[in-house]
């Protein structure tokens, strides 16, 4: 190894997929792995996402669905930001503009993607993220 070169490998990115639908947790999880996110976890609603963070875990990226039972994406995003979570939070929604989408963005999202999510959406997002 040459002088000045870092001894530790670049830490791989981690992500949390928050969605009440299992089909979407599976697809989004697989999409993330496809663009190089090595560690992906999942939560079934906003409350689970918050509990995971209260348990001490953190992620470089959170994919947050809007409509979920127990705690929706707006409440969860607000809650995570109030806890001081600085992860990149990308909202994912099938709703049109104006149907609570503005409130979702104002809750603390970094960006919002429409469904369906694609490899293109995620690969451009992942290149912007520096590991926490």
């Amino acid at each position, binding site marked *: 190894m040459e002088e000045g070169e870092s001894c530790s490998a670049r830490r791989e990115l981690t992500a949390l997929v928050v969605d*009440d*639908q*299992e*089909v*979407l947790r*599976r*697809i989004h999880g*697989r*999409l993330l792995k*496809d663009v190089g996110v090595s560690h992906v976890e999942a939560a079934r609603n906003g409350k689970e996402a918050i509990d995971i963070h209260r348990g001490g875990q953190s992620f470089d990226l959170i994919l947050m*669905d809007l*409509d979920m039972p127990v705690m929706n994406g707006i409440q969860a995003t607000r809650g995570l930001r109030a806890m001081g979570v600085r992860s990149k939070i990308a909202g994912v*929604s*099938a*709703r049109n503009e104006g149907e609570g989408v503005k409130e979702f963005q104002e809750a603390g999202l970094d960006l919002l993607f429409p*469904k*369906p*999510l*694609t*490899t293109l959406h995620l690969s451009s997002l992942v290149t912007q993220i520096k590991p926490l």
Partner: protein
Amino acid sequence: MLGLGADRLWADMNRLLAFLFHQGVLDEQFLQLQQLQDESSPNFVSEVVNIYFHESEKLLRNLRSLLMDRELLDYKKMGIHVNQLMGSSSSIGANRVRNVCVAFRAATDQNNRAGCLRALEMLEHEYCYLKNKLHELFQIEQERALAAGVRYPLQN
């Protein structure tokens, strides 16, 4: 001779897929799904689609139950279920199902019960058609895999 069976089934599969794309039943999202399938997850598409079927049928039952409640029609709840079905359908490339969801959502936004009923019937029809066709596709794929598996007989 055994190889020809696998090849013929491969052609059948591609013909069915081309038909489904041409009819607008599936769109390019289904291709993305197929691209996510690899050696580490060789049954990814069928697994995900089966989960989609399971969750969609629950949403359709909920929608029918909400619409049958003549006393209090909860259009907001219906709208949420329709959004969920629209999101999952678009994510697996179920284009026609997704399009009917768009019309259904418009009817819930307008508190239009008759429109919601019509949309639900169309949705159930499109969903059934999609399910039958995808089952057919997976059946052919299974038969092709079996046929390809016995393509090269063991040699002494």
